[in-house]
């Protein structure tokens, strides 16, 4: 979102706020609590200075949060930003998810680690707006100048008197004041912060340790039925025949019917729905279906075939040139030494711990949806369009999500849940089994990259070219930021747009540089996966950087530092995190045989460097013992949140580095559960040391950065330990076996 747009919208909300907040569903007015002074204003009226805050006479403060809670802590961090400027008593804060009212809440989604960055200013302004109105209300009540009234921990205090009115006591009076444009209010300086940057326990955790947290799969409404869908195992296949006789006889099964595949905008496979009075009966019923599928025409896809296609595509013509600086062809021709290497990584599954699900109730006048989505406003739009009803007839409750990592930015699951509920005309929860989840995900693209570098006679890096080949996301998913049309589907820039970033080697100073792209066809659906293209481009770039350093006999840390242009802001920040990570990891100190350290770094708003320390066992298995991550993400809202996100992102990425791969055979995904898509387990989890660089620059995201660097840091450490270069993930232990 553009910053200007933010301001305009907030300003609008400031003006129309009271009316807007009245639309907010789920609010009720609790009985008034006691107040210490005579309550000014109309008794019992709640104070809703904007669409984000509601203060009631009992001193309770409700904060509405647009960003979904996927585990990243959004409900706590957003509330911290509001409460910081409001000078609220933190113990009086409660957070609720903002409802799907598009006229007011336009950002019921999160993606690209953008939650903190996109809300930091607006949420502080919302808190400041409320604070200033409360000060005015108190000043009028006491008949004193505003500057004598200060907001302190949930109350306005009158300087030099000890007099005090709680926010709740002032709520009615503040509610009667004219609105205040939030952009005109001065915000606190960082050194005045008492919540931001401090250790504030997360508000969502108590319910997550006692079993009471409600995820999408836990939604229970009166009359709820449960459904699963039998989907064609072959991508692009269609239902030819179904015999449901035995399925209908399974106790608890209510209905069995075909579900049509939805067009590519929704990307659902369709199939046969089995609706029952419990999830288990639905699964049992599905097991009894006799199904025949028509396969798509043509040769069935296999990973082996796709790899061959990609091996050719790294040599063929590019469809898009992302960066072309200097003259790479000429510089490579003139180089005294040219190095070349290919890097490859496969499709990856999201494997969220909560399988996909959505509950829908189609009623006469409205459609109610409960979904663990990271994109509620889009779910609302899409279901309204599918059902052919006005937007305000669709209510979407964005529940807690049991992990997302990009998967819940699709609305395929809500769309098919609507299809089933629309037939049943009573509430239905459509659940995916783990097998459904692994076989019908939207996978991280399979990719291959060819890197070439030219060195001159003095060992200087004079040229670098990167060819990226992927199964592009845009060919199967084209809904965010693009209008789907035959033109955009053919547009090489659109196809390449999500595939190459992170491969631009910035901010290293290399005079001749070219980054280009070519797509490879696949029937496998693709989409965002934690850090998207940056989940594979730094693996190639930072591994190749390591190869160059070793080829020149240089220390990989020193080599990188020398390539960073002095004085360039990102280069300076990168230099700082590189040095910090190296120092904390004991870079350069001796290690036992078959152990090694590897380094990788990246700037993506946030600036980070990682050092992995690995041991390679005689059987070739790689144990990651420790990872040090230095992070410069600007001003830190929650230091422990930055640590948690970084730890989590590293662990998430280690699955793809060590064991996880989705492969295709005969047109279907080969993996089906956690026995054959092996995710990182606790015994494999390294010690992780997160070092945060102190900064007052505007905050930037941390949800993805840790995931970008684990691949190259570990691969480089494996080289340091064994002399074997890993150019394909997950790491094949057979390459490293010594016995």
């Amino acid at each position, binding site marked *: 979102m553009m910053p200007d747009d933010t301001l305009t919208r907030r300003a609008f909300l400031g003006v129309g706020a009271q009316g807007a907040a009245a639309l907010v569903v789920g609010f009720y007015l609790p009985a008034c609590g006691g107040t210490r002074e005579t309550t000014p204003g109309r008794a019992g009226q709640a104070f809703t200075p904007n669409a984000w805050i509601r203060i009631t006479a009992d001193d309770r403060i409700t904060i509405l949060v647009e960003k979904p809670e*996927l*585990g*990243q*802590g959004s409900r706590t961090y957003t509330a911290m930003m509001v409460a910081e400027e409001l000078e609220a008593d933190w113990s009086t804060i409660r957070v609720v998810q903002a409802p799907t009212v598009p006229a007011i809440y336009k950002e019921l989604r999160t993606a690209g680690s953008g939650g903190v960055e996109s809300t930091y200013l607006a949420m502080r302004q919302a808190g400041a707006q409320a604070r200033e109105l409360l000060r005015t209300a108190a000043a009028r009540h006491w008949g004193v100048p505003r500057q004598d009234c200060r907001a302190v921990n949930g109350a306005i205090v009158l300087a030099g008197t000890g007099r005090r009115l709680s926010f709740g006591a002032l709520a009615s009076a503040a509610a009667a004041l004219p609105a205040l444009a939030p952009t005109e209010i001065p915000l606190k300086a960082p050194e005045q912060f008492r919540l931001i940057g401090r250790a504030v*326990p*997360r508000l*969502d*955790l*108590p*319910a*997550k*340790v*006692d*079993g*009471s*947290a*409600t*995820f999408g*799969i*836990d939604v*229970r409404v009166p009359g709820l039925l*449960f459904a699963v869908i039998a989907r064609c195992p072959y991508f692009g296949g269609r239902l030819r025949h179904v015999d449901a006789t035995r399925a209908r006889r399974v*106790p*608890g099964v209510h209905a069995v019917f075909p579900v049509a595949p939805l067009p590519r905008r929704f990307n659902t496979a369709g199939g046969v729905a089995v609706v029952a*009075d*419990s*999830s*288990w*009966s639905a*699964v*049992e019923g599905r097991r009894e279906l006799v199904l025949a599928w028509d396969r798509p025409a043509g040769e069935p896809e296999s990973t082996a075939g796709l790899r061959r296609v990609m091996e050719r595509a790294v040599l063929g013509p590019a469809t898009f040139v992302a960066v072309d600086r200097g003259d790479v062809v000429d510089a490579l021709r003139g180089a005294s030494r040219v190095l070349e290497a290919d890097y490859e990584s496969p499709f990856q599954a999201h494997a*969220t*711990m*909560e*399988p996909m699900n959505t509950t829908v109730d189609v009623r006469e006048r409205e459609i109610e949806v409960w979904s663990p989505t990271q994109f509620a406003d889009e779910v609302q739009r899409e279901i309204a369009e599918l059902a052919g009803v006005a937007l305000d007839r669709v209510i979407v409750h964005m529940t*807690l999500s*049991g*992990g997302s*990592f990009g998967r819940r930015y699709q609305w395929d699951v809500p769309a098919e849940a609507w299809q089933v509920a629309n037939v049943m005309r009573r509430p239905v929860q459509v*659940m995916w*089994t*783990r097998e459904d989840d692994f076989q019908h995900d939207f996978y991280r693209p399979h990719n291959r990259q060819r890197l070439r570098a030219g060195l001159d006679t003095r060992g200087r890096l004079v040229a670098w070219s990167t060819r990226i080949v992927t199964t592009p996301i845009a060919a199967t998913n084209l809904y965010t930021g693009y209008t789907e049309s035959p033109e955009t589907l053919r547009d090489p820039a659109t196809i390449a747009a999500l595939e190459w970033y992170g491969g631009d080697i910035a901010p290293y100073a290399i005079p001749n540089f070219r980054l280009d792209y070519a797509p490879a066809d696949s029937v496998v659906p693709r989409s965002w996966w934690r850090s998207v293209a940056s989940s594979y481009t730094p693996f190639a770039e930072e591994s190749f950087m390591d190869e160059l350093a070793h080829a020149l006999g240089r220390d990989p840390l020193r080599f990188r530092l020398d390539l960073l242009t002095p004085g360039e802001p990102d280069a300076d920040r990168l230099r700082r995190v590189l040095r910090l990570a190296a120092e904390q990891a004991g870079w350069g100190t001796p290690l036992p045989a078959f152990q090694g350290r590897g380094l990788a770094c990246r700037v993506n708003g946030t600036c980070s460097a990682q050092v992995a320390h690995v041991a390679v066992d005689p059987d070739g298995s790689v144990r990651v013992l420790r990872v040090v991550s230095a992070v410069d993400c600007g001003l830190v809202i929650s230091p*422990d949140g930055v640590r*948690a996100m970084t*730890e*989590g*992102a*590293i*662990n*998430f990425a280690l699955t793809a580095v060590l064991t996880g791969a989705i492969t295709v055979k005969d047109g279907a995904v080969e993996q089906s*559960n*956690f*026995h054959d898509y092996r*995710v*990182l*387990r*606790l*015994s494999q*989890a390294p010690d*992780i040391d997160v070092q945060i660089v102190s900064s007052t620059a505007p905050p930037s995201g941390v949800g993805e950065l840790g995931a970008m660097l684990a691949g190259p840091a570990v691969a480089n450490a494996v080289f340091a330990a064994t002399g074997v270069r890993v150019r394909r993930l997950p790491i094949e232990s057979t390459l490293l076996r010594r016995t």
Partner: protein
Amino acid sequence: MPSITLHINDHPHAVDVAPDTPLLWVLRDTVGLTGTKYGCGMGLCGACTVHLDGEARRACQILVSSIGSARITTIEGLAADRKHPVIRAWLAEQVPQCGYCQPGQIMQAAALLAGTPHPTRQQIDEAMNGNICRCGTYQRIRRAIARAAAETA
């Protein structure tokens, strides 16, 4: 269908379900205790971990007809008063992210500590290896178990 009586969190529950129904779905869809989570249905992820007579078991792998008079404890029972040292340690270390796997993690950890009050790191790693966390809270889980063990010293 004959009624089966289960002893869940110190209360009897009579349920009418097919005898081969896994305990997981009886807890979630019949009794309404949704704190026990479905993750894989194959005993591979640990999200559905409950205690059967104090022992950590995967509820997706237990047929309801096989339970007999065994006492079932779910996360709701363990956490009833939030005083359990594992629950307190989980909050102190701010373990959960998405939180979906955490009831299973906590049940597994509580069973570990009941049998091994002061586990070594290796014992923790072994006992917790069947519980997947995709958000990657493993380092905090280790710390929280060590904390709970220290507090019950």
